């Protein structure tokens, strides 16, 4: 069994991360009735005997004493991290896992990346090493951050770089929250594009998320509940947005529902690595199957179902609906429509009481309406995990390497160019030590190249299918 470490950077990263740890505890509590520290728990938590203080030894088997998250919390302002430490999750983190400062990064990528980067480099490396030492077999780093600000974006990508240098064998999965068009941070296009270059070059897989999509999903759920159209009531703790039953007892803040969706994404992504199933899908398999060319590692994700009705019997029709929803536009976590673009590869990770025949039936059913690239017509990676998420009898996570990310990147590029042509706000960046004009031009050219790669693939979409001729063997 392998371990993963979560590195949450910046305000958004820490808020999402906090929801993740909350839901992870809830999930394991539901499965692990006996309170024994097992391998599934050890993938994200350490078991520490804290009777002798925070520096107690790790306990590898036996009863759960005190669970500590395998996490690093980084923020250049104290507000968010302090709140976490005063909240119900305070015992899950110890002081050695935090790196904070006071003044923040002023929504400036350069401040986060160059200034705080070099200032905190040693501190970060040391803490990462410590966390890695506690792992028997570290497989993956999960970075959670937003792209539009200064800390998450700048310092977050600095940490990404660092991880590649210091731990080259460990996978780097990045969950990035992209800014929307009406983002109130004016410089978010600069920050995002500068961060994109780092993601292009140093991440193994990126799971982009857009606030607009999360917001729409939350609204959809509220509408369904309030409209009274549903015959039976919705099971409360089955909402993909809810934290009912978790440790948090305070009032839910507006972003909580949205952040819960992203937290659930990470939980489902790692479920097959933690729990058993008839067809396991580990994190290294996700990277292997979904990344055909090194730079094309952006995966569009969708989670279904969004809620469960209280009936116990789930006719297979509803199961099939779950599969159909996974491919619909309104379930994607970014503003994209994979059905009308080109698939390079697709992964389906099913949890719960679903068998291989259900999976096959739905793949056969949905395949005709999807466009797959010519050299990967059967490009499906599937996983079956027996343990469903809390409150559901089954669930599905779909990860698509699809050219529908292209519009997101193109819009980002447009917003960047609007500012850049006028040189608006550039001085805030260029006055930072280590920042030059070339940083900007390289970043935008990296993004343009990426868009071009997607364009080339799209061009093959409706063309004639010519299979290359096979090797000829002398008879």
């Amino acid at each position: 069994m392998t371990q993963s470490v979560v590195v949450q950077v910046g305000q958004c990263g820490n808020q999402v991360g906090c929801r993740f740890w909350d839901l992870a505890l809830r999930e394991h509590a539901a499965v692990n009735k006996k309170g024994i520290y097992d391998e599934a728990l050890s993938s994200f938590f350490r078991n520490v005997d804290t009777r002798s203080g925070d520096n107690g030894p790790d306990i590898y088997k036996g009863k759960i004493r005190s669970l500590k998250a395998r996490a690093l919390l980084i923020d250049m302002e104290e507000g968010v991290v302090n709140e976490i430490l005063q909240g119900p999750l305070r015992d899950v983190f110890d002081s050695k896992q935090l790196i904070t400062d006071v003044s923040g990064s002023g929504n400036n990528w350069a401040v986060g990346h160059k200034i705080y980067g070099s200032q905190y480099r040693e501190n970060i490396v040391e803490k990462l090493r410590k966390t890695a030492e506690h792992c028997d077999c570290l497989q993956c780093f999960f970075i959670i951050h937003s792209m539009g600000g200064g800390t998450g974006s700048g310092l977050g990508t600095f940490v990404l770089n660092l991880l590649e240098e210091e731990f080259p064998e460990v996978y780097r999965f990045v969950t990035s929250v992209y800014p929307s068009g009406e983002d109130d941070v004016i410089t978010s296009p600069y920050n995002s594009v500068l961060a994109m270059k780092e993601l292009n070059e140093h991440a193994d897989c990126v799971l982009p998320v857009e606030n607009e999509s999360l917001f729409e999903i939350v609204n959809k759920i509220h509408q369904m509940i309030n409209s009274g159209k549903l015959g039976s009531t919705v099971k409360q703790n089955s909402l993909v947005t809810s934290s009912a039953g978790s440790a948090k007892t305070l009032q839910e803040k507006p972003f909580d529902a949205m952040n819960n969706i992203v937290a659930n994404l990470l939980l489902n992504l790692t479920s097959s690595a933690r729990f058993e199933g008839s067809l396991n899908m580990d994190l290294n398999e996700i990277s292997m199957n979904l990344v055909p060319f090194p730079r094309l590692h952006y995966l569009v994700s969708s989670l279904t179902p969004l809620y469960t009705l209280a009936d116990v019997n789930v006719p297979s029709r509803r199961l099939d609906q779950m599969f159909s929803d996974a491919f619909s536009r309104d379930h994607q976590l970014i503003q994209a429509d994979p059905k009308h673009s080109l698939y390079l590869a697709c992964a389906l990770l099913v949890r719960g009481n679903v068998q291989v025949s259900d999976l096959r039936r739905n793949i056969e059913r949905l395949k005709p309406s999807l466009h797959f690239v010519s050299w990967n017509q059967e490009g499906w990676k599937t996983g079956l995990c027996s343990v469903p998420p809390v409150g559901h009898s089954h669930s599905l996570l779909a990860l698509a390497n699809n050219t529908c990310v292209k519009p997101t990147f193109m819009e980002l590029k447009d917003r960047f160019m609007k500012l850049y042509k006028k040189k608006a706000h550039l001085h805030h960046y260029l006055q930072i030590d280590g920042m030059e004009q070339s940083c900007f031009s390289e970043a935008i050219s990296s993004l343009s190249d990426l868009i071009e790669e997607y364009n080339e693939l799209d061009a093959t979409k409706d063309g004639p299918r010519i299979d290359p001729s096979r090797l000829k063997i002398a008879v």
Partner: protein
Amino acid sequence: MSIVTVQLGQCGNQIGHEVFSTLCSDIRGTHGLCSKKENESYQDSCKERFFCEEESGAPVARAVLVDMEPKVISQTLSMAASSGHWKYSSHSHFCQQQGSGNNWANGYSVHGPRHKEAILNLVQKEAEKCERLGGFFTTMSVAGGTGSGLGAFVSQCLRDAFPTSFILNHVVWPYGTGEVIVQNYNSVLTLSHLYHSSDALLVHENDVIHKICARLMNIKQISFRDVNQVIAHQLGSVFQPTHTAGGGSGYSRNPLGDLLEPLVPHPELRMLGLRNIPQMPQSSLAYSTFSWPGLIKHLRQILIANAHMEEGIDWQVRPPQAGSSIPSTNKPLHFNTSIANLVILRGKDVHSVDLGSFQDPSLYTSWLNPRDAFNAWKTPRAFNKYEKSAALVSNSQFLLKPLDSIVGKAWNMFASKAYLHQYTKFGIQEEDFLDCFTTLEQVISSYTNL
């Protein structure tokens, strides 16, 4: 003689468990339909072949379990132990933490050399427990990373360490519409490597078994466990003790040798397919009766028409006219030409069965005498509660189309260079791929021109 089983990867371990389970429940059953003496002899022979007795009395499977991550092995060990009737030895498994990530190169070039000694030690220990070692039976899938990559490496090591032993590789081909995206690459790499080190490949295809589950076994929500149980039943019907043709009154003492020697006369042609008849849900067995002529007729047509099961057989397909000398290139395209066949009959009245129809020369290629090309084993002891059952192990064009399809898809992907960076980073280069494609195109060509 004893057979040591090596279970590789998730699929190999899951199937291996079902096979031992089936073998054990078969010998414990009282539906032998034969004399008590015969039944006891059968049980003893099966136990010697597949299990060793431990002091505690419960039979211990002669098996080595290998996987690069722990979940499946630990599940397999505990399922066996909780059955109460048999178990695995607690010292015969090897596992790591990380898995192979569906990457053949990782399994073959990294895990293989790294863990070779430990794995071979375990195999050696199992081999030493056998009074007479009859050979090795490995089981794995070709689609993933461990079974396929590490499996190919281990198979090669077995060949080097035991140059005179028989090695039969049981391989499972994945569903055509994808379980793993790079499954075609992994399949091509595995099959070409195994071709050089094993004596024969015994192939099961998930698509085919799935159809059997759906149509014959009436299972509504088919799980991998169902698929594996059908595979286990088919394997059991081949490997449970039998009387071979010249074997005298006892059960065969050389199961793998007796199987492989007649079926693999030519080194280029070593892919074996398996068919079994009848197959139905256990609950229907009590209400069904069969006649041998009917079973044999269906089995023969399954062979000729390349059918997968006793339903949906194309009865229009006929062998070319006997007596006329039609060159092999003119044989009707959907007719399945055989090199060699083995039919294994078990149950009531086996000795009265007439298998002359299988000796028809028109079924076979011209370069082997049909008397040598066809063999039959008959055993009065019934298998797995089936009053009468027949298995066909065939070296024929059964697997030609599916193999061609796998190679075609892999080539298509290779031409676009997709995913190659995942393999090159572990040391498998484009030239290695080309060598493997060449090997398999050669195999395809050999089978096409029968």
